[in-house]
């Protein structure tokens, strides 16, 4: 059945002071500031309401929640009246009944009486409250002025706005403001003319609406209604699960009818999202049953052959026999595996175990290689572990928020809403980004300082900020003396204090005025609790790891690690980046970030796994490509990752894959990598999985199966079968047993189990005998994981990717709100209506110089390659910098990115590519060849179907 959450009417208040009052004769004790409505609900007394809901501040407009209070005149609204000690409150009386019935009568006199055919039948608060107040007739009739013939707005592909059903309770408008922070909705007109209005009386799709669904969630009637509910009817059962998009890891209620998802609604008890959602998690889940899903195992000898559907056993045995043949012919180290941040912890754990135990080498890597591997290195070196330091909720205590190389409103929208709420409350914002991203200036938010640096100069900026803090006496000396390694701090202090690291000396390099850098540094160091949030604009550089270290240094020097409201917070791109790294997916370390060369740790795994492990690190993904091209790497097991589309220098990747003898791809679609594969194993979507994801705040949440795997086997079962066929037994009966093994072998996971997560909702690692039962919300409290915090010198070294007369512009890449990563999921949804192609953003100055207008086709040439996109002229760019996304394979965004990479981790330098941009009339040669190749591969697939 559907699990209906209790709506307490107004938000929870926290206070050290409690008040006790009497409601309907019952004593009730609540924190001071709690509304009478909430106090009553907590005591089990439901006060009628329409304009109140516990995700929004009280509004007091519907007049349905009136109560009587001894000693007070009139009938106060219980939603806006705070509980006070000694109050005696009555929620029911003849007079209250009469008043409420009169109010309801007015509402219903302007509401269609179509309950039996209404999409919200059975899930309508107006219907429920009409019953609660005992409405039996409407004295006013239905012939007067009304809104019953108001037109529907069906422009949004996911929900309708039926104005005829609107009771103007304002919940949608307030949700857009308070929960989402977009301010796209308002109430236009006055009195009887009052109507909900997106933008300037525009259709939803033409307004600023970002389709987060907060308004739909808040609507008490069918005014704002999911189209799937209109089409399919009300769901009949539900399960709590975790979103499969970004690293925020929102909890959702999958509302089902049989095995069919009717809607996904954000779960208000989910600690990552607290009842909020974005367009992707809320609406873009239809890909799971898209006709393109691969549902049968397939094999072929060569990539020019048609696919042939085979049984699971034949596919698995073929893959195993090929891997064995390759190892016999080319050596033990000639094959490897890649895990995915889109897969569960249990699935990634099994793949790395298969590589280490069944392949007998350490050639396992994960897609975090190309996003947050520098976070692992940088935070590991400075703090002792690879993880963000805070909970998302911690932002509510931040006074200064520094966003570096992240675009949270597009990439991590639900967390961005929490951040924007805190900013509207008065926290100060510093943005370090080459582009004027949305959060720099959005409704009721304006960054104090936008450091619009030149791409590739992050480390210069972080050193300049540190220079100001050290030379102006802004170091938190007491914190540093107590918490940090003195020798490393002194070396760092001497280094950043050098004149060459001053904002003035680096201004020419970074393009940021020295005065702006100085002001930002002073604000960060002296503005109270200061929190840094960063993204791939930090990591995807030749000095990605150096920049992570620089951020860690800055936070330590100012005492901003180890309590609420501060910290260093990597915003993880995909849903399980944190988890896939935790699970030992990197070739040099076992689960829990322990190096493979550590004999004690290795022995623990050897003993448990019953096999000898190799003590040397394996190949990283770029190293695998290199080894393939030079003939020593011939076989790959790739689960849930699309390296051809997402990795840089596409030609290099496809050439490497073409040189290999057996590529096994396990995925839900024929992705770009699968077009080079010899074995295609159908994968499961998140709706078909049992397991866990770990989000950017180290929060481990359950992923629950709400429909059976379309291909009959779950991903973990496929890996087990492959391992068994290779001769290494894996005989788990359920993913919970895999987590039990992880917990047994990994100290930071010792206290984690499915049973505990099911009971508590989620846990945060470290979670063991030394922590609270639910784990560790804030890291490094009292002391750093490594003991003393370690400062490292961060010498700025300019990227080798230089602009020249031939390549005078810098290209940087990223993502947008409606599409996700390589787009395999979101491109197969109606999200394409927001973003149907990758465009190149160009500054007006650069566009004018080249005669480029919006919608023109432009050729983009780099040292690596050439592709063609349509242009958008945008002042968000700075002159000399162009930008694009990489959501569509035919765009070839990564045809032009280069092999340059981070010095420590080989994370690609996606964010800096020197290019020339000129108007053109036709696609690039690569695009023409890609089209032929791709159509041919589709035909080879269709041959099998």
């Amino acid at each position: 059945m559907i699990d209906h959450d209790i709506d307490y009417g107004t938000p929870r208040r926290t206070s050290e002071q409690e008040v006790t009052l009497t409601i309907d004769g019952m004593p009730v004790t609540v924190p001071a500031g709690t509304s009478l409505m909430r106090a009553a609900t907590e005591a089990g007394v439901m006060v009628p309401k329409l304009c109140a809901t516990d995700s929004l501040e009280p509004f007091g407009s519907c007049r349905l929640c009136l109560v009587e209070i001894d000693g007070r005149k009139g009938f106060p609204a219980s939603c806006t009246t705070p509980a006070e000690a000694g109050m005696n409150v009555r929620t029911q009386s003849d007079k209250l009944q009469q008043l409420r019935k009169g109010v309801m009568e007015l509402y219903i006199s302007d509401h269609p009486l179509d309950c039996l055919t209404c999409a919200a039948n059975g899930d309508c608060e107006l219907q429920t409250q009409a019953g609660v107040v005992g409405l039996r007739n409407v004295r006013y009739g239905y012939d007067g002025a009304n809104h019953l013939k108001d037109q529907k707005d069906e422009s949004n592909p996911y929900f309708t706005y039926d104005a005829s059903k609107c009771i103007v309770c304002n919940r949608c408008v307030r949700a857009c403001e308070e929960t989402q922070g977009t301010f796209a909705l308002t109430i236009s007109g006055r009195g009887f003319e009052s109507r909900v209005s997106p933008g300037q009386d525009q259709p939803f799709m033409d307004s600023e609406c970002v389709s987060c669904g907060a308004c739909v969630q808040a609507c008490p009637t069918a005014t704002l209604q999911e189209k799937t509910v209109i089409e399919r009817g009300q769901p009949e059962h539900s399960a709590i699960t975790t979103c499969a998009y970004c690293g925020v890891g929102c909890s959702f209620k999958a509302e089902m009818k049989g095995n069919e998802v009717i809607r996904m609604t954000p779960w208000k008890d989910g600690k990552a999202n607290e009842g909020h959602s974005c367009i992707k998690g809320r609406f873009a889940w239809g890909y799971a049953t898209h006709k393109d899903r691969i549902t049968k195992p397939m094999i072929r000898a060569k990539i020019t052959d048609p696919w042939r559907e085979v049984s699971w056993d034949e596919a698995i045995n073929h893959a195993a026999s090929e891997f064995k043949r390759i190892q016999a012919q080319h050596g033990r180290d000639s094959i490897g595996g890649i895990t995915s941040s889109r897969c569960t912890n249990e699935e990634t754990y099994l793949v790395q175990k298969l590589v280490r135990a069944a392949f007998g080498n350490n050639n396992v890597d994960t897609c975090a290689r190309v996003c947050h591997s520098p976070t692992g290195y940088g935070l590991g070196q400075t703090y002792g572990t690879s993880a963000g330091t805070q909970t998302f909720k911690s932002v509510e205590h931040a006074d200064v928020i520094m966003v570096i190389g992240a675009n949270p409103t597009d990439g991590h929208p639900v967390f961005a809403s929490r951040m924007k709420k805190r900013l509207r409350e008065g926290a100060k914002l510093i943005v370090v980004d080459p582009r004027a991203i949305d959060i720099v200036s959005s409704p009721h938010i304006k960054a104090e300082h936008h450091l619009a640096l030149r791409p590739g100069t992050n480390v210069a900026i972080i050193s300049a900020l540190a220079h100001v803090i050290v030379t102006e006496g802004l170091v938190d000396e007491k914190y540093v003396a107590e918490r940090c390694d003195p020798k490393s701090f002194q070396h760092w202090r001497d280094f950043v204090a050098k004149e060459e690291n001053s904002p003035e000396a680096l201004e020419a390099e970074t393009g940021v005025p020295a005065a702006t850098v100085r002001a930002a540094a002073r604000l960060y160091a002296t503005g109270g609790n200061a929190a840094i949030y960063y993204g791939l604009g930090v990591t995807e550089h030749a000095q990605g790891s150096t920049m992570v270290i620089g951020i860690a240094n800055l936070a330590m020097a100012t005492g901003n690690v180890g309590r609420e409201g501060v910290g260093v917070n990597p915003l993880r791109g995909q849903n399980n980046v944190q988890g896939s790294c935790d699970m030992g997916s990197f070739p040099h370390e076992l689960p829990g970030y322990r190096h493979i060369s550590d004999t004690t740790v290795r022995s623990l795994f050897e003993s448990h796994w019953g096999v000898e492990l190799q003590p040397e690190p394996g190949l990283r993904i770029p190293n695998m490509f290199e080894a393939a091209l030079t003939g020593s790497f011939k076989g790959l097991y790739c689960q849930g990752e699309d390296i051809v589309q997402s990795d840089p220098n596409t030609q290099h990747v496809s050439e490497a894959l073409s040189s290999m003898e057996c590529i096994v791809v396990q995925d839900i679609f024929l992705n770009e990598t699968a077009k080079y594969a010899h074995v295609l194993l159908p994968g499961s979507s998140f709706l078909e999985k049992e397991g866990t994801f770990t989000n950017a705040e180290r929060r481990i949440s359950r992923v629950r199966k709400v429909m059976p795997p379309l291909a009959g086997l779950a991903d973990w079962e496929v890996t087990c079968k492959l391992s068994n066929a290779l001769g290494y037994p894996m005989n788990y009966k359920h993913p919970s047993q895999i987590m039990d093994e992880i917990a047994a072998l990994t100290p930071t996971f010792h206290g984690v189990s499915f049973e505990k997560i099911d009971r508590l909702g989620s846990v945060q690692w470290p979670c063991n005998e030394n922590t609270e039962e639910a784990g560790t919300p804030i890291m490094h409290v009292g002391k750093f994981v490594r003991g003393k915090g370690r400062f490292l010198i961060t010498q700025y070294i300019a990227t080798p990717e230089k602009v020249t007369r031939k390549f005078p512009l810098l290209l940087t890449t990223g993502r947008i709100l409606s599409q996700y990563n390589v787009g395999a999921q979101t491109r197969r949804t109606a999200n394409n209506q927001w973003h149907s192609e990758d465009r190149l953003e160009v500054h007006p100055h650069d566009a004018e110089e080249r005669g480029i207008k919006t919608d023109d086709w432009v050729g983009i040439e780099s040292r690596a390659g050439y592709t063609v996109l349509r242009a958008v002229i945008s002042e968000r760019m700075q002159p000399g910098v162009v930008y694009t996304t990489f959501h569509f394979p035919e765009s070839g965004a990564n045809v032009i990115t280069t092999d340059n990479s981070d010095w420590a981790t080989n994370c690609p330098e996606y964010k800096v590519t020197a290019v020339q941009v000129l108007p053109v009339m036709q696609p690039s040669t690569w695009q023409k060849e890609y089209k032929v190749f791709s159509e041919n591969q589709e035909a080879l697939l269709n041959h099998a179907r």
Partner: protein
Amino acid sequence: MHVENLIKMANQIGEFFASFPDREEALDGVATHIKKFWEPRMRSALLAHLDAAGYGELNVTAADAIRTHRGRL
């Protein structure tokens, strides 16, 4: 392995550690990094190239580190 890429990577590592004031720590840092993160065939390809072509393509820190700590690479 394309040795020019290995040289480039070794030089990048050398550049990071070059600014460490403690020279011994810097050289140890380079060698430890290569040992901890490079797969053995990458290390052996680099060393074989250095044996054949000398250390001239490496920056001073990378070259000194590999010379000093060659035994553990």
